[in-house]
């Protein structure tokens, strides 16, 4: 049986977990090809115009998969942490896909909801597993191997490798050689899909900088910095961004911060504002907010990055 995984949204965070799990269950895993202009075009054709770019592209990936696989894996990720949510758009994702795309193969849509109970995760694992086998031991074994694989991945991230490097298998930790360190903030599906962000990481690193991302920070950093909040924030991905920004006060090695958001992103419209105000008030690190959507062009982005990097270079020289 062939199971399709669309290369979009939280695929970039959970690839090692999902792929290994399905492979261990004896399935043939088909991941959609890298995002291209065509993926975007297909996605835009079927979605409403005010939904965000990553979701549009996700639609494109599902369309490219649907005729080549027996089932598609579209999880409903409600909450991956207690009292926190991902985003309303991900909570309704399978329903939106079903409403927008015709002739879909069956969808495997486990609901991952940890808002009320930590058991929610295991429930989802068994829900998915039981589609393919009725032996619980097989599911458990596959799950064990998958989590082990995932742990290795997160450990590598905490050591400073970026998801895009690990997923591509070209891990070159040039952090020591780099002239600057740039903190690139954003959601994983924007940061690690070079098509969405117009190859931004490469562009920045061409100036001799090392880009680090929120995925490089450990859980303890998040915990210590988020306890400062007046009211706990209820978006998991937003928390990561806030904590990554808040730790800048203690870190002296970051030369600049870029916040990458997709146009119309709900959580980021508020978090971006909080981060910007906080950085301006508490640090003297240069900050820029870049918004991307399906109309973004290379030239506009190049100009901004060039200006930003020039400024950082000059600051460093003086």
């Amino acid at each position, binding site marked *: 049986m062939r199971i399709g995984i669309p290369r979009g949204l939280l695929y970039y965070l959970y690839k090692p977990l999902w792929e290994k799990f399905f492979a261990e269950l004896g399935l043939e895993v088909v991941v959609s090809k890298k995002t291209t202009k065509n993926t975007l075009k297909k996605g835009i054709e079927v*979605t*409403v115009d*005010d*939904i965000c770019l990553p979701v549009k592209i996700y639609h494109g990936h599902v369309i490219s998969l649907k005729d080549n696989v027996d089932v598609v894996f579209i999880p*409903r990720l*409600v909450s991956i942490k207690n*009292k*926190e*949510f*991902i*985003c*309303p*758009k991900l*909570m*309704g994702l*399978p*329903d*939106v896909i*079903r*409403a*927008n795309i015709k002739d879909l193969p069956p969808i495997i849509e486990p*609901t991952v909801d940890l808002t009320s109970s930590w058991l929610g995760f295991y429930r989802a694992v068994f829900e998915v597993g039981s589609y393919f086998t009725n032996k619980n031991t097989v599911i458990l074994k596959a799950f064990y191997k998958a989590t082990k694989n995932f742990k290795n991945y997160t450990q590598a991230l905490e050591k400073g490798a970026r998801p895009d490097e690990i997923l591509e298998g070209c891990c070159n930790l040039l952090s020591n050689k780099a002239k600057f360190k740039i903190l690139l903030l954003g959601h994983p599906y924007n940061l690690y899909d070079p098509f969405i962000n117009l190859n931004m990481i490469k562009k920045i690193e061409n100036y001799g900088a090392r880009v680090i991302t929120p995925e490089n920070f450990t859980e303890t950093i998040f915990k210590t910095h988020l306890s400062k*909040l*007046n*009211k*706990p*924030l*209820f*978006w998991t991905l937003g928390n990561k961004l806030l904590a990554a920004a808040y730790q800048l006060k203690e870190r002296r090695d970051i030369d600049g911060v870029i916040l990458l*958001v997709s*146009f*119309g*992103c*709900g*959580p*980021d*419209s*508020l978090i*971006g*504002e*909080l981060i910007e*105000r906080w950085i301006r008030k508490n640090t003297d690190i240069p900050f820029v907010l870049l918004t991307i959507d399906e109309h973004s062009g290379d030239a506009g982005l190049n100009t901004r990055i060039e200006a930003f990097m020039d400024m950082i270079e000059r600051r460093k020289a003086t």
Partner: protein
Amino acid sequence: MRLSFPHMGNLYIPIKTFFESLGIEVVVPPLSNKETLELGVKHSPEFACLPLKVNIGNMIQALEKGANTIVMAGGVGPCRFGYYSEVQREILSDLGYDFEMIVLDPPKGNLLKLVKNIKRLIGDNSFKKIWFSARLAWKKAVLLEELDYADGMARVSKKLNKKKANNLFNYFEKEIDLTVSFDKLQCIENQMKECYHDLTPSFEPIKIGLVGEIYTVLDNFVNMDIKKKLEDWGVYVDKSISLTEWANTNLLLRLLNIHGEKNTEIAARPYLNHFVGGHGLQSVGNTVLYANKKFDGVLHVLPFTCMPEIIAKSILPAVSKKYNIPVLSLVMDEHAADTGLNTRLEAFVDLLCKRKEGMKDEILFRS
């Protein structure tokens, strides 16, 4: 303490009544207007949804009027509204205002903090007085909804012309606002019954269900008086969300934990199988219910970039097709203009008329 709060429709009347009868000085910000919106847009994040921007405008105007404490509702997600208060506090204090913000989060978040905040607001008032104030405020909320319904029917049935209806509505709204005793409220209710009698239209009007995000549905400044506009054309509009009903299910039942699954959730299930925050699920469910009730069309209103409603907007075309009911989604933001709205509404109502042949002559398009 000079207390203030942002606007949502005519919610200010019950809230003001509640706090004033507890002996707290209340500063009501000017009703949302163009200046409010301009102030809000100027100081808010660009992609924040419209309610946040209007709220910021309300708050600035209230602080300018001398308020020093702001009450704001909170939330526990996933809708952005739950984190409004934090962003608003940052924006306003960066603008140099000296004030205190009291945030009322639902008990699911932090019960102790909620109790503490409520205590700060009600002070040393006796339980009897609080009970009285709450009942008075509730009664006003109920009366305002009755007024809204009666006014609508008077317009639809053409029993009152637009100007008379406006005058009568404003008169009663003001009376309800100023009254401080139950007896007087009873008088007003009787008076209302007298003025608005025999409201059944002599023809069968086009029926439209209004679904969408609660603030956009309830606040007439933000939705540009969409309900009255349609009613003046002789179209019956049913709001899917009412304040008292919302308060009943969300505050009382949920607190007592006897909140069962609602009809809307069951109706939405084949199309949207999970809560998505805000009123996204209700929008889908209510559209199905309106179709079952043989309404002629559904209007879906949402602020630009509203996350839960974008999910609903993505799914509504499928519902519309299945149930053969026209659905029009209207996105509201600071650039929305009367003319644009009118054109779309006219075209939509035209379409509904054509579908319901024989009705055409009954409807006057321009008043």
